[in-house]
C-alpha cells in the first residue's frame, strides 16, 4: 500500500534529545529533562528482593496509566521474583513481566511516545534498552445511544471516543476476515490514531487508493475532530454540501462498508467518516431499513420534499408577494393584502429578518443547558409569534412561511448547513428578480450539485444515471428484494448482494 511508503514524511517525528547509556540514574535524569515542567510525569525506582543491586525504574504519566495493572504486572513480579545472577532485559521480558503487550524498545523516541500514550517504560540498570509495557487505562464514556441519530427500532449502540472500542463495535457486526483496519497517525502534535476500514473485495480499489493518498497528504499539527479530515480531504471544499459523510452508529457504518464505501475512524471522536458520500445519503436513515418499506418510503419522500420546501418556501413567497401578484388566486391575494396592510417593512426585509430571527433562536437553543430551554421557547414563541403579529410589525403569512421553513429544515439535521445558505440565496435572488431569480437560483444549485464529485463518484449519480438501478434507494426505499446489487460505481468486484442478483 502506498500508505506506509511516505508515512515518515507526513508525521514529523519527535526527536528526543536522549542518549541512553548504561547508568540508570543518568538515563532517568535524561528522561526527566524531556518531561521537565510536566508534573504528571512519574518516576519510581525499585530493586529486586533477592538482589538489591538489580535496580529498576518505571516511567509513566499519572492519570494515563491504570495503576493496578502497572503494580500487578510490572512491579510485583520484578520485586518478588528470584532473580538469578545472570539476568538481562530479555529474561525480564520473557520470564518476569506478566502483561499481554510488552516489547523491547531501542530508540528513545519510541519510549517517549510510549510514555505519552499511557504506557509504562521499564528501565534497567546497566542496560541501554528498555521495555514498553501496556498499562493504558483511563476512564471513558460507556456505549450509549447516539443523541443525534435516534431510531425507534434498531440497535441502540453508538460510537464512543476510544478508537478500539469503536472498531470492536464494527468487527462484532462483520464476521469476515475481509474486513480490514489500517492504522495511521495524523497530526504532528496530537499523533491521533486514524483507522481506515474497508471490506476487501467489496471496496473499489481505485477509491481506496485515492482515500489513502489524500490522507497521506494531510499535514497538520492536530486532528481533534473528524471535520479536520473532512475539510482537508473533501472534493468540493467551498461547496455547502459535504462529500464525506459521518455517522455515530456502528450499524450504519457497517451498512456503508457493505456498499463498498470506506470508513475512517479517528481516535477521540465518536464518529465514523464514510466516503464516498452521495447526495441521497443525506436523506437515508438506518431506520428506513428496519421498518416496512411503505412507511420508510413515505418518510424518505417527506425528507426530500422537506428539503425542497425548506430552501424554497421563503424565496417563492417573496417572489409571489413582490412580483407575481397575478399568479396568486384572488382570494389568497385578498387575504395576504389583509395581513400586509399597515406593516412597516417591505416583504423582503420582513422575510430576511424573520429568517434570521429563527436562526438566532435555533443557534441559541442548540447549545443551551436544558433548564434554560423552556424560557427560550417561550420567548421565541412570543417574539416570532403572536406579539410581533399583533403589534403589526410583521405579517402573519411570513410567520407561517418561516415556521414551515424552520420545521422542514429541522427534519434532516444533517443537511441543516446547506439549507440555511441556499434558503438565503434563493430569498435574495427572488427579492431581486422574482420567479426568474428563483429559477435561476434553482438552476445554479442543480448545476452545482451535478458538478461536484465525491472521490471520483458524481454526487448525483443515482439520479442522473440511466436505468432504474440507482433510483431504487433514493426518493423511495424499495423493498429489500429489489436491491440485489451493491451500488454500481462505488463497489468493487463483488457486486452481488443477494441471491439471484447476478441474473
Amino acid at each position, binding site marked *: 500500500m502506498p500508505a506506509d511508503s511516505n508515512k515518515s514524511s507526513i508525521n514529523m517525528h519527535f526527536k528526543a534529545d536522549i542518549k541512553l547509556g548504561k547508568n540508570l540514574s543518568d538515563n532517568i535524569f535524561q528522561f526527566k529533562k524531556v518531561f521537565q515542567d510536566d508534573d504528571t510525569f512519574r518516576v519510581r525506582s525499585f530493586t529486586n528482593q533477592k538482589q538489591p543491586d538489580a535496580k529498576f525504574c518505571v516511567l509513566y504519566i499519572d492519570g494515563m496509566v491504570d495503576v493496578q495493572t502497572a503494580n500487578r504486572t510490572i512491579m510485583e513480579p520484578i520485586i518478588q521474583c528470584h532473580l538469578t545472577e545472570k539476568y538481562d532485559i530479555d529474561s525480564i521480558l520473557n520470564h518476569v513481566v506478566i502483561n499481554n503487550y510488552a516489547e523491547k524498545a531501542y530508540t528513545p523516541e519510541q519510549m517517549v511516545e510510549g510514555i505519552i500514550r499511557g504506557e509504562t517504560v521499564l528501565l534497567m540498570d546497566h542496560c541501554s534498552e528498555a521495555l514498553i509495557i501496556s498499562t493504558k487505562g483511563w476512564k471513558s464514556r460507556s456505549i450509549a445511544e447516539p443523541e443525534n441519530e435516534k431510531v425507534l427500532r434498531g440497535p441502540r449502540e453508538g460510537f464512543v471516543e476510544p478508537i478500539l472500542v469503536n472498531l470492536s463495535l464494527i468487527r462484532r457486526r462483520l464476521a469476515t476476515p475481509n474486513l480490514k483496519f489500517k492504522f495511521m497517525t495524523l497530526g504532528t502534535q496530537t499523533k491521533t490514531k486514524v483507522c481506515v476500514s474497508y471490506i476487501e473485495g467489496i471496496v473499489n480499489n481505485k477509491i481506496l487508493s485515492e482515500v489513502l493518498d489524500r490522507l497521506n497528504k494531510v499535514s497538520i499539527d492536530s486532528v481533534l475532530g473528524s471535520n479536520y479530515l473532512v475539510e482537508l480531504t473533501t472534493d468540493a471544499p467551498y461547496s455547502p454540501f459535504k462529500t464525506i459523510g459521518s455517522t455515530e452508529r456502528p450499524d450504519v457504518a457497517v451498512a456503508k462498508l457493505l456498499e463498498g464505501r470506506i470508513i475512517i475512524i479517528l481516535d477521540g471522536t465518536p464518529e465514523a467518516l464514510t466516503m464516498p458520500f452521495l447526495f441521497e445519503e443525506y436523506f437515508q436513515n438506518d431506520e428506513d431499513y428496519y421498518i416496512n418499506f411503505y412507511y420508510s418510503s413515505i418518510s424518505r419522500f417527506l425528507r426530500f420534499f422537506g428539503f425542497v420546501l425548506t430552501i424554497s418556501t421563503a424565496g417563492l413567497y417573496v417572489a409571489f*408577494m*413582490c*412580483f407575481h*401578484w*397575478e399568479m396568486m388566486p*384572488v382570494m389568497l*391575494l*385578498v387575504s*395576504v*393584502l*389583509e*395581513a*400586509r*396592510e*399597515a*406593516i412597516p417593512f*417591505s*416583504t*423582503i426585509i420582513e422575510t430576511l429578518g424573520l429568517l434570521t430571527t429563527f436562526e438566532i433562536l435555533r443557534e441559541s437553543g442548540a447549545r443551551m443547558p436544558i433548564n434554560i430551554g423552556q424560557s427560550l421557547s417561550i420567548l421565541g414563541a412570543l417574539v416570532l409569534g403572536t406579539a410581533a403579529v*399583533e403589534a*403589526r410589525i410583521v405579517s402573519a403569512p411570513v410567520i407561517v412561511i418561516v415556521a414551515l421553513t424552520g420545521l422542514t429544515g429541522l427534519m434532516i439535521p444533517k443537511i441543516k448547513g446547506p439549507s440555511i445558505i441556499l434558503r438565503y440565496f434563493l430569498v435574495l435572488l427572488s*427579492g*431581486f*428578480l*422574482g*420567479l*426568474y*431569480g428563483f429559477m*435561476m437560483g434553482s438552476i445554479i444549485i442543480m448545476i452545482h450539485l451535478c458538478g461536484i464529485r465525491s472521490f471520483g463518484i458524481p454526487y448525483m449519480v443515482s439520479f442522473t444515471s440511466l436505468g432504474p438501478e440507482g433510483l431504487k434507494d433514493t426518493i423511495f426505499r424499495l423493498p429489500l428484494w429489489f436491491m440485489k446489487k451493491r451500488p454500481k460505481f462505488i463497489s468493487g468486484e463483488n457486486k452481488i448482494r443477494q441471491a439471484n442478483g447476478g441474473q
Partner: protein
Amino acid sequence: MKKRLLLLPWIMMIALFSTSCWNYKDVENLDVVAGCAIDKTGEGHYTLTVEMINMVVKGRESQPESVILETEGETILDAIRNSISISSPKLYWSHATCLILGQDVASEGIKEILDIIFRDEELRVGIHLFVSEGKTAKELFDAKVLTAVIKSFEIDRRMADEGFLSKSFPVQAYRFIDVLSEEGISGVLPSICITEQKGEKMIELCGSAVFKEDKLLGFLDKEETKSLNFILNNIKGGVIPLKESSDGGAQRISLEILKNKTDIEPMYINNKPSIQINIETEVSLKELNKADNTITQKDLEFIEKEAGNRLKTDIEGFISKVQKKYNSDIFGFGRSFYKNKPSVWKKISHQWKNIFKDLEVKVKPTIRIMDSGMTNTYIHIGD
C-alpha cells in the same frame, strides 16, 4: 479560456436583467380592481366606474371593503391613468373578474375596449364581459348583492354556478373576440340588470344581449337565453318545466337536465339552404304528482314526447324571433355551413344576411328520461 470564463457570468447577467420582471413592489401597494363598468358621457368620453378592494384596518383586524371609484378620460387607458389623480396607488387590473358595458357603449361598438383587453399586459383576456340592461352600467355598483363584500366577485361566482340554470352563460373576452373574427356567427354577451327585492336594489343576471359585429342590437330574456344555450350546445344542467293537462287533470312536471348534446346540421337541398338542429337531452324526473301506482313505460314516453314538443316550440319560436327582429346569426348557422359544407358557404356567404332572415330551421329534440329519482312511485293520498 479566461475570456470565456468571464463570458459566463456576463451571459447570466444579461439573461437575468433582460427579463421583463424588474419592478419590485410590495403587495400592499396594489389597489386590486375587482370589476369595472364602462359608460360614455355626452362628449363621447369614457367613464370608468371601478370597484376595487380596499383594506380597512380596525385595531388588530383588517377587512376587505368594496370601494367604488369613478374616473373619466378620452380613451379607456386615459381614464385608467386619470384615476391616479384621484386615488393612489395605481390600479392593478390582473384580478379584475368582470367588465360591464353600458348600453350606450355597447351599441356604439366595443372594438376598442376589446382591443385594450387583448393588448394590455395587466388586463386578462379571460375577463367576463357583461352588458348592462339599464341606462348606465355604473348604477349597477350602487345596487346590492346578497352576501359577498365585493360585488364583482359575487357576479363572477354566479357565473360559475350558472351551469345548474342555463339561463345565462359566461363569456370571456377572448371568446367574444374569437366569435367576432369568425365567419358566420355573431356574438352574444350575458346581460345584467337591477331588480328590486324587498325595496332594495339588487343586481341580477337577466338574460343576454345580442350583437351584430361589435354593436349591441337588443336583449333576450332568460327563457330565450335558455333556448339559445340549447342551440349553442351550452347546456350543462337546468330544468325543463312542463305543465300537462292529461286525463288526470293538470299536473306540473320537472325534468332536470343531466346531459345535453346539440348538433347543428346544415343542409343544402335543391339550392335551398336549411338547418336541422338535433338536440339530444338526457333528463331525470324530479317533480310528478299523477295518482297512479307506478310509473309505467307509457308514462315516461308520454312525458318525453311532451317535453320534446315544449322544447321544439320554444326554440323554433325563439329562432324566428331573432331572424325577424335582429337578423343577427348568433346561432352560428353560417359557421356550420362554413365548417361542414364549405363549397356551399362559398356560394351563399355574400348574401348570408338575406338568407338567414328566411332560413328554414327544423328542431328535432330527443328527450330521454334516465331515471325517476330515488323512487318509482307517486305519493299516494290515502284519505
